[in-house]
């Protein structure tokens, strides 16, 4: 650290980022428990966590302040961003197909309409 005041500032930012990341993780956990069905729970399980991860990784990068850390952090973030939608999609798709969701909580279902249309389409 070049001098104490800028070191303090960095520490504050790092602290805030870590706190934000932790809060988002808590929100994800609470959502996971409180949301009514599998599909809504997927939102809580995969989503606030991405911003949480960005916050925590940014905090680590700021704290370490060297490029070697950055080289590990960037692939971590990119791979996480590519893979987490896939798992969410696979679980969501399986949940929808097996009817593992509460129909009374779906306001409008355009996929059902589409399946309906496909079923009545003359081949």
């Amino acid at each position: 650290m070049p001098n104490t005041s800028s070191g303090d500032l960095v520490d504050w930012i790092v602290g805030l980022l870590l706190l934000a990341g932790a809060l988002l993780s808590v929100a994800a956990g609470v959502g996971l428990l409180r949301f009514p069905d599998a599909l809504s729970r997927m939102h809580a399980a995969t989503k606030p966590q991405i911003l949480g991860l960005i916050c925590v990784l940014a905090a680590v990068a700021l704290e370490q302040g060297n490029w070697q850390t950055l080289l590990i952090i960037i692939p971590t973030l990119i791979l996480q961003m590519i893979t987490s939608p896939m798992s969410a999609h696979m679980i969501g798709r399986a949940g929808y197909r097996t009817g593992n969701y509460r129909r009374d909580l779906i306001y409008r279902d355009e996929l059902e309409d589409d399946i309906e249309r496909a079923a009545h389409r003359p081949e």
Partner: protein
Amino acid sequence: MSPRGPVRFQQAKGERKRGMGEQILEQLPLLVALVLLWLFLWGSFTVVDILMGIFVAVLVTRVFELPPVTLSGRFNPLWLIVFLVDFLWHVILGSIQVAALAFRFGRVAKSAVVEVNLETRSDFVMTLVAIATSLVPGSLILEVDRDKSTLFLHVIDADTPEKIEKARGDVILTERRLLRALGSRDELDRSDARCSAVKR
């Protein structure tokens, strides 16, 4: 899955019969990305590392061979930055929204399954749109119809027609930004025509 799926794959196979040079050129972005990942993970950039990275990248793409990812050949870094900033903004907004929903007591959030018809016919752009949409909290890809370039999303807290249209519009806007950054010219034109038609 669908009658057109296998046909498309055959087209891709046919394309691979083109010259060796073109083949390498097509795979180049993927190979470069793999070599960079290798170097990043080792954290060093010596000649041996680079050669080893190239070897592993070629080996991996040969052993786990997939249909080549066809890029449009257009790339606009400025629009990519616009896309990324916009994307990050939506991620922040969405995170706050979903986090707030988790702590909201009383009313249960209703959701909707929304159909979005995309302009693009490129698998690559469609995948990127799907990933970007998935990463924004509040929307989840349930089903993809590749032949019709249609995504079906599960949108949380969408209990009015306006909210559904907003979710649809967001995805179409994401697609447009991505097309501007790396889509082909005529898909971008089609997307432009569609957006101006919607505005009227």
